[in-house]
């Protein structure tokens, strides 16, 4: 009884914490100065239509690097906790013909769609994180449809570490070519034509590496959980 009372008090406390936020809230009618300078810089300096990508990859690039590191740590933790046993053999009923044919037909298309999403991240809604998740969903489809589906672990780890290292190298290239205080600055490649695929400097490359990294990491999470729970 006293425990429920304490929970109730804690929830009331949370309501009191959030009340000033609701009270001061008014829907804005114009951009604040920081957002406005980001939007303008995205068009004039970076030649990039999608300002969200400009914020993620360039203006807040260091935060994105940190978030990719958090993602790596979480996947490493999953892999550490769900260590695979050598003698483990999954006994699952094989999927039906329809399921397997459908999965084999759809998964390459989904992977290509994921690659499309992260290569066009600077032009349209999308980017490395979303594209990576789409690729991982295709891997999940393959794993669930085929009982005997096996990954190449070496390939997964290789592509994950290669794309992570390439992301940092792209950032360091900015530091090298454009001088100090320009880590992750993509302007060392030409800006290109506005609204074309090869524009906005190194942003499509950086976002593609992020996409490969996220896709490989989430695939290895799916793989760990599948190996552990496949009994």
């Amino acid at each position, binding site marked *: 009884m006293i425990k*429920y009372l304490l*929970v109730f008090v*804690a*929830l009331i406390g*949370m*309501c009191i914490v*959030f009340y000033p*936020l*609701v009270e001061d*809230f008014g*829907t*804005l*009618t*114009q*951009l*604040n100065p*920081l*957002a406005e300078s*980001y*939007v*303008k810089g*995205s*068009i*004039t300096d970076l030649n990039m*239509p*999608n*300002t*969200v990508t*400009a*914020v*993620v990859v360039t203006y*807040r690039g260091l*935060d*994105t690097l940190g*978030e990719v590191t*958090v*993602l790596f740590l*979480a*996947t490493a*933790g*999953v892999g550490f*906790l*769900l260590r695979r046993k050598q003698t483990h053999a999954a006994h699952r009923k094989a999927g039906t013909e329809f399921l397997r044919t459908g999965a084999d037909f759809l998964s390459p298309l989904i992977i290509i769609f994921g690659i499309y999403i992260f290569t066009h991240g600077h*032009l*349209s*809604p999308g*980017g490395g*994180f*979303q594209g*990576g*998740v789409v690729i991982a969903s295709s891997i999940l489809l393959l794993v669930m449809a085929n009982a005997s589906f096996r990954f190449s672990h070496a390939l997964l780890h290789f592509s994950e570490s290669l794309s992570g290292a390439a992301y940092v190298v792209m950032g360091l290239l900015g530091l090298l070519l454009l001088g100090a205080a320009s880590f992750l600055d993509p302007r060392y490649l030409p800006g290109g034509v506005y*609204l074309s695929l090869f524009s906005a400097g190194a942003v499509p490359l950086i976002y593609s590496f992020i996409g490969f990294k*996220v896709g490989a*990491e*989430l695939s290895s*999470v799916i793989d*760990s*959980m599948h190996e*552990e*729970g496949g009994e």
Partner: protein
Amino acid sequence: MLILIGGILLIIAGIWAMLTKKNLIRIIIGFSIVDTGTNLIIVSLGYIKNATAPIIDTAIKTQTDPHTGLKILTKIVDPIPSALVLTAIVIGLAVTALMLSYAIRLYKVHGSLNIDDYEEFKW
């Protein structure tokens, strides 16, 4: 406003689930609900009335002035909260996977998902 209040309600519901439920899986679900509520609050703080997505293509009117520089005439939402939420969703997915694998590991070793069976890990 409605989305902000909805997000706060989701956070409170998630905290209630984390505090009162005994099953580890339900506690993890509560954590995911808090995650979603936080994302909703951040997105609602960046919303601008009657604005569209911040992608400056041909659908958005701009005006270039030699003195004041570029001016955007169509209303667009704040890109910064969108950028934060975009990464936070993927990070939330990975952290949920990490918590679930802790739960799987605990279940393998001790054979229980009830939080009361793990009193010795409390301190």
